């Protein structure tokens, strides 16, 4: 009787430890949260803008100086707008992958061969993580230009514009790959599971 009480007592004591140990294991994939523009980034953009305003004082054509100032603001605005919008899509993709994982776990429990589908899901997770890293790096960047020749400011600004354009194209490519991989994963899961547990 005493032995039984000791066993029950130890089981009760150890159960929370075991449960905690399981839940503390690092999750290989997480729900991505949409980005918001941080105060620090806003201040950095503002600082760069003030520097550009100073440089533009040496430009005699005031109309050109005003346009250059507007472009400078727009360069950073475009970067923020696109990276924020894309982060919402990445969030949605990660949400879909988490739901697919649930379907796949259920299929495995039902005794189905999930190997190929799991590979498609892992591929999608990897693609989304790659896109997330690229997006976060891009969102933290600020864009500016120096005035090397006050009479021909167009070429300096064009260079800054091209840098931003190329950087955004690179990130967009990773997002396109991520989307395609997620679509492939959903199709693979749908093919495996079909209508066997619809609506879960």
């Amino acid at each position, binding site marked *: 009787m005493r032995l039984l009480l000791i066993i029950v007592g130890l089981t009760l004591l150890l159960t929370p430890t075991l449960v905690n140990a399981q839940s503390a294991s690092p999750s290989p994939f997480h729900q991505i949260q949409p980005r918001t523009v941080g105060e620090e980034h806003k201040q950095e953009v503002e600082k760069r803008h003030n520097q550009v305003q100073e440089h533009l004082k040496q430009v005699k054509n005031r109309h050109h100086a005003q346009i250059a100032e507007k472009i400078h603001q727009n360069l950073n605005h475009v970067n923020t707008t*696109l990276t924020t919008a894309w982060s919402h899509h990445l969030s949605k993709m990660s949400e879909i992958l988490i739901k697919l994982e649930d*379907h796949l776990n259920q299929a495995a429990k039902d005794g189905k061969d999930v190997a190929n589908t799991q590979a498609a899901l892992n591929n999608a997770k990897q693609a989304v993580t790659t896109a997330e890293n690229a997006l976060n790096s891009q969102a933290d960047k600020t864009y500016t230009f120096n005035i090397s020749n006050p009479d021909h400011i167009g070429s300096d600004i064009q260079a800054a514009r091209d840098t931003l354009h190329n950087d955004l194209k690179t990130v967009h490519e990773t*997002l396109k790959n991520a989307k395609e991989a997620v679509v492939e*994963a959903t199709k693979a*899961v749908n093919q495996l599971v079909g*209508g066997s547990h619809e609506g879960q």
Partner: protein
Amino acid sequence: MKVNNKGISTIVVTIVLAAIFLLGGIAYYSYGNKGEKTSEQSAKTDNSPKGLVNEADSIELETVEAGFVEIDSDLKELK
């Protein structure tokens, strides 16, 4: 004013009936609203494998070029 036993009974019955109707109305209203929300929610989030295929397919990434229309137009003025 003098109220007899019959009058008291009538008042009590009326109050009880009114309470029943009131509670019934509240319950019906609450149930109806919940029902609408549930059907709305299920329409928005179809978590079935087929629903997830459609959801992933419907993701439309904004193009890079869309953001550069104004910048490119302004740049032309500087050249």
